[in-house]
């Protein structure tokens, strides 16, 4: 439908006496400048008694990127929300269709700039399925090793963000120390701090090097203590625990209906982790637990992620122990032309299941690459979680779901 612009104060919803106070006040309300396109929109943009709109974002200090949420408030209590997405839309899925298979890796990389390796991992695995390539074992070990490091750095950032949205200043700076060390060692391995562009179809780009290993060994010797110190700052804080517990509770049924995955799902008590339920790479050979909690609230999601950090440390230890010798790339031609067909691959990232559905038409460019991003799925939950909560908790609930807007808007 074509966008139809209206003169000031002539929007249909402006007939509502609660919205249009006088002359151009409605101009300052976050009402879309076109007539309501759906019944839901018409209903949302009509104010009840004592309600008001509050436009949050896309420049709000804590919407984690450029999310915009129009809140309908009754006092400080949220009645209804209308998320407005697309401020970070770059058309990655379309760009990928015009790049050859190797080039797509750098296109999907910045989708989720906090845990880029998992964004690469899923499409790369899908291409490998299309091509029937056997990935060398050393490459798989390196993938798991770097992936788990990335998972820890992502969770460290989550912890800082979550505390910051609840008003704590210090945790984000403490957790950034940890994150910075990991990011630096990944830079030594891959050449980049955040957008790694490291995984290749059939292997990885570079072998383990001395700087990476020395940094890793150095950090591993104090990682457990560092993680403990960071979490102690919050776990034993009465105000934090009281704020976070019972906040944004998701029960098992809702979580499954909303297609939640990752820590958000496991916090409700369902032990679903792709690394165990649909094993890929070398995860079947490694020993680690899938922590779950039963509460399903923000505190459970936070504690679960901190528990996952410890499991990731275990995995890294085992990877270093068992690291085999050998090539890091499968033998492949320069120009890839997979057989026509379709492949689905998914990996368990720090936020949930990262999936890629690749369709090949036999040329050197993918016909279609559908990216399944957990942030987008989890952001849908805010519609169910936010109404009824106070304004102060909207950001905390959103933070506890841990969405990244790059992945949501693609």
């Amino acid at each position, binding site marked *: 439908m074509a966008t139809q612009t209206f003169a000031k104060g002539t929007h249909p919803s402006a007939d509502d006496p609660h919205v249009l106070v006088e002359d151009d006040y409605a101009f300052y309300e976050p009402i879309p400048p076109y007539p309501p396109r759906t019944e839901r929109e018409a209903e949302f943009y009509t104010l009840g008694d004592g309600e008001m709109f509050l436009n949050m974002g896309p420049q709000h200090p804590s919407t984690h990127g450029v999310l915009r949420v129009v809140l309908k408030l009754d006092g400080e209590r949220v009645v209804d929300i209308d998320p407005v997405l697309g401020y970070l839309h770059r058309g990655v899925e379309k760009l990928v269709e015009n790049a050859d298979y190797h080039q797509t890796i750098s296109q999907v990389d910045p989708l989720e700039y906090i845990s880029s390796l998992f964004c690469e991992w899923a499409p790369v695995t899908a291409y490998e399925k299309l091509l029937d390539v056997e990935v060398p074992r050393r490459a798989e070990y390196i993938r798991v090793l770097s992936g788990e490091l990335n998972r820890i750095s992502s969770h460290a950032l989550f912890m800082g963000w979550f505390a910051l949205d609840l008003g704590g200043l210090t945790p984000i700076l403490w957790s950034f120390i940890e994150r910075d060390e990991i990011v630096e060692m990944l830079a030594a391995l891959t050449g980049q701090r955040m957008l790694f562009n490291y995984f290749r179809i059939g292997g990885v780009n570079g072998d383990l090097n001395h700087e990476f290993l020395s940094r890793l060994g150095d950090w591993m010797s104090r990682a457990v203590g560092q993680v403990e110190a960071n979490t102690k700052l919050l776990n034993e804080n009465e105000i934090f625990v009281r704020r976070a517990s019972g906040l944004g509770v998701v029960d098992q049924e809702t979580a499954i209906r909303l297609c939640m995955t990752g820590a958000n799902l496991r916090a409700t008590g369902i032990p679903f982790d792709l690394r165990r339920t649909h094993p890929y790479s070398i995860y079947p050979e490694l020993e680690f637990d899938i922590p779950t909690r039963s509460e399903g609230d923000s505190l459970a999601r936070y504690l679960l992620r901190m528990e996952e950090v410890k499991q990731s440390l275990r995995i890294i230890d085992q990877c270093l122990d068992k690291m085999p010798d050998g090539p890091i790339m499968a033998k492949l031609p320069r120009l890839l032309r997979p057989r026509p067909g379709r492949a689905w691959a998914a990996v368990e990232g720090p936020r949930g299941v990262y999936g890629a559905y690749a369709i090949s038409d036999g040329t050197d460019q993918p016909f279609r690459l559908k990216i399944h991003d957990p942030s987008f799925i989890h952001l849908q939950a805010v519609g169910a979680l936010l109404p009824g909560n106070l304004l*102060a908790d909207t950001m905390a609930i959103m933070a506890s779901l841990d969405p990244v807007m790059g992945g949501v808007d693609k």
Partner: protein
Amino acid sequence: MTALARTWDHLTLPGKALFILIPLLALLTTGLIVVIALFGKQILDILIFNLPIVRFVFAATVLLLLAPPIAFVIIYMEMKIIALMNLRIGPDRVGPWGTLLSTIHGLKVLMKEDFTPTRADPVVFTWAPVVVFATMALSVLVIPFAPGLFAQDFNLALLYFFAIGGLTVVGLLMGGWASFNKYSLLGGLRSAAQIVSYEIPLTLSVVGLVILAGTMSLNHIVQQQGVYVDATGSHGSGWFLDWYVFRQPLAFLIFAIAATAEANRTPFDLTEADSEIVAGFATEYSGMRFGFFFFAEYIGVFIISALTTVLFLGGWNAPFPFPRISWLVDPGSLGIGLLFVVALVPLLGTLLLAAPFYLFRSQTRWWVALIIGFVLFNVVAAGLFGLWAYINFDWVAGLFWFLGKTFTLVFVFVWMRGTLPRVRIDQLMGFAWKWLLPASLLNLFVTALGVLVADALRGGPA
């Protein structure tokens, strides 16, 4: 004329300022000298006749002028201490250890654009920061800094303090309402709800103390926590056990918590919760109007700490009885050796302190050693002078202890900001009405009962 214009163009900004200021100052000084020469006697007579008023105006001016520097010090403290707690370095560029950064910030907000948003109410919008700053600064007037060092001492000082402190909320509401921004409005309403709720336990918690003290004059309350003499004889041991914090521990706890909320500090800084409502009532403010809000917040921290010190931590009293050397030695008898002191001691002291650096370290040049000796001598001299002033002047000792205690409390405020997350608005309200208010009533009841029982045991009211 062109030469003058060219000179003017080539001057730097401070140069231009001095170019204007020096003739102006010369003119003013000359005028002042003339006026004093002609009417000096009459002016002096008028001043002496109105001594209490003159004293009040002088003290009030000094205290109001002191407000921005106090805010600067606390802002710097906060930046540096939170930086250290965050494992950062913090300010370290402007001045030694970055100490001048907050001053530079103060100058910066003066130079910034003073912006009023469309549809804002310009009059209310302009006056809101003034109201907030003025109320905060006015509260300083009744705080006794040291014996004899206060602007005004009257019998309702405590009531005055709470009354004026409660006016802050008017300014915050004005700012929140006039900004034409919903975040500001929410911040203003939150501050109104918060300050009104916490005013009640804050005031009730000190009623027990007022019963014990029998006065609301802050000066008398401080005196009662040290050694003092009245009609019934000499009281107090001089030790810190006389402080009201040991007689009213529950009241101290309630007061400290409610005061944190009153000063809008973490964990009760809901009015400017940056992760929720951007910057609360200050969202639309810029330039010096924002600066007023900012200063007011830190002066608020100072006065709340100062009041806690005065009421519960003994104010200017030292925590232990200190033998007065001035009672043993007459300072006047030291005047004999004054010439000797002025002429020889700096020279000898510098040489003495420089000698080890020159003699025992072969790499040090003689002039470097002399400079080191001179600096060291100044440090030692300043220390000795401070000690001498501490011993001889009550107000120096009083100021030392008062500021020491107050800034310790300020540090605690900053510490809490670095450590604690923010509470939610319903938790905040619930805490005030369900816990603090009953606790302060209980404290009042127990105190009143205790006073009654003690009087009955002594046989009739004192």
